[in-house]
């Protein structure tokens, strides 16, 4: 039987069917969701000291990310979930990473046009160097967009 292959966009489309957006909204405990404003130190490392997760919600999302990376056995993509920072929606960050951290890393950073397009509701493809990234909106049970799924292949993840 001929093998079926899936585009990254198709993998992302299937993946978001199983990603519970409500859990992404609650992936940090309530007292940590505003963690950037708790940081008093100037150095970047201190931000990480304030990060904490709700393990059940995190693990539920992580499990789906790791599984969606296996939808097409002929591909070796990695995935991550991005959110916009509530205190400054121009900024975003990875909140849950699958098999690797995205190339952009784990820090809070300004969002760029391609990912902003997905936050606006449009699945978006970004070709870069020899690889490809797709960004796909993630909804909660109220059908609000609460995050963006990244699926990347042949884009070096952050080595850490």
């Amino acid at each position, binding site marked *: 039987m001929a093998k079926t292959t899936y585009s990254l966009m198709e993998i992302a489309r299937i993946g978001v069917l199983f990603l519970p957006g409500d859990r992404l909204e609650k992936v940090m405990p309530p007292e940590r969701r505003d963690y950037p404003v708790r940081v*008093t*130190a100037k150095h970047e490392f*201190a*931000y*990480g*000291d304030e*990060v*904490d*997760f*709700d*393990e059940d919600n*995190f*693990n539920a999302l*992580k*499990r789906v990310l*790791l*599984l969606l990376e296996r939808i097409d056995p002929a591909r070796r993509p990695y995935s*991550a979930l991005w959110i916009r920072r509530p205190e400054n929606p121009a900024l975003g*960050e*990875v*909140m*849950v*990473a699958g*098999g*690797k*951290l995205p190339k952009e890393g*784990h820090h809070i950073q300004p969002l760029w046009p391609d990912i902003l397009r997905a936050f606006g509701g449009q699945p978006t493809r970004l070709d870069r160097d020899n690889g490809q990234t797709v960004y796909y909106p993630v909804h909660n049970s109220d059908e609000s967009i609460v995050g963006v799924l990244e699926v990347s292949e042949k884009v070096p*993840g952050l*080595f*850490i």
Partner: protein
Amino acid sequence: MADSMLIHNMIRICPQSGDVLEEEARIRALAELRETPLALTSPRNAYVSFQIIVDLNGGHAADLSIEAEPLQGDRDAIAAAEYTFYAQWYHHIDGKYYPDALVPLTEGGASVRTLGEVTGLNAVPGQAYAACWVDLFVPADIHPGEYKGAVRVRTGNAVQTLPFTLHVITTIVPNESLMIADLNSYADNLSNRMKYLRNNEERYEDGTYYKVERQFFRMAHEHRCLLHYLPYEHSGAVPPVFIPELGGKGKELRVKDWSTFDEHFGPYLDGSAFADTKRGAIPIPYMYLPFNFHWPADYVKFGTKGYRSEFTSVMNAFHRHFTERGWLHTTFELFLNHKKRYKLFPYDGDETRFVWDEKVNDIFYELARDALEAKEGARFVFRTDASWSYGLHFGKYADKIKLWVVNALIFSWFPESLPVLRAAGDTIWTYGAAEKIGQTLLGTAISPLTAILRGVDGFVYWENTHWGARWFETPLGEGSETLFYPGDELFGILGPIPSIRLKTLRNVMQLADCMEAWIRRQPEGGRERMSGLIAEALDIAPGSWWPGKSDLVNKPPYEWDDAGFSEAPRARLHQGKPPEALGDLTRNIWRILG
């Protein structure tokens, strides 16, 4: 012609002005140093080091070279082949030039490059002085006594002979260290950071990776240190040659093939990788296991019986294999380095801050229990790196966690933890970073001495291969993340070159190992005696290495803030002290040990 002199090893000389760079030094002018003949004292089976400072007298150093004569004693000689000469390489730090990288001029007693060649490549503007670091190995089988030696500085046809004396004492430095000087790094940074490896996609298959990596392990070993190379990324991904090949899933998961793993690690674990070093074929004392949140068990299954099946069966296979191979001299560590800040996992396996993450200790102890509690065979232990929650955990986990690597500052707040962990038979190291190049060399010496003072088993520098892309100009973080430099690009050396700080650390480790051996031979009071001598040399109050508790400990760790750390008590042991204090201490110790 060049004009040269010999000086001791605890100061560095500015290549432009000739001033002593250590501001705390008792003597800061070369003219004064010239008045003091070099008189060395050393135990046997040890390196002793000194420096040759060459005043270029306005000339250039192109034809400058160094030679040595054998040392002559009444009953023995020390062969010229026991010398190793290194050109000091200067780095630009805060507007000054400091030497740190050491470029070998000799290998096995034969000249491979000249001081002049290295000085030309370094190209320090306005350079007036060049410097050579000298290592002299004092063999274990020579008679104690007085020896006379000399080195020759040759400039063209002109030769200057520089004599010195060496007093060899009876003490023999043991090949095996009683203290662990742990140089940590993360796989596979060597491949990322060395051009020779980075440019070779076949490096794992064609054997070149092993050869280069082994040079790092050997250099650490020869300097009485341990290269400790964590074999996985924060994601849990492991480079292929750091793990055996697995097959199957769930309860069928098995090790299929050990051959690559054994080829990689076998020589470190049976000691053969070190066979022709001065310390000999000693297996590495500690090694990380590759087990983590996502290997060998699939994190998709975390919390299920399948996760347990996968983790436990492979852990037990490791224990069986290591036992069958006779790797019984190394302690193997189950260590979970994951940090939630990287958003790959929801738990801190490393440096627990949120106390509820301590469940990770319980979960993984249970998964590895068979291997961790095995009465026979290879020694597997659970290791933790502790900071925020150390005060909450040392009592609670003393029976499960057998290797504690504790933030040096926070450890100093808890002297009461020491007897608790000792009673449980646990090993304790502290962790910090290598001293910056721009700081006094006494700062490099202080880690082994502090371990003696506090009675711990070792210390860790958290990163030691992060030299930075422009290390030959200014190393990343002033060298606080490396004690090695890559030899490939500038010198064609397919491995590391050492640093002055690594040499300094080795010299102090020799001293500390002898002190620790002496302490253990005393029926009681040995540590107090040695601590008293360190305190006297550093002119510090007895007990000042336990500075008292921070108010932070009265709050849960997740409420600690930067202000609390700023105000926390800190032991100040070497700051502002003359680097010659180490010489005072060393002479005192050798006099007592004989």
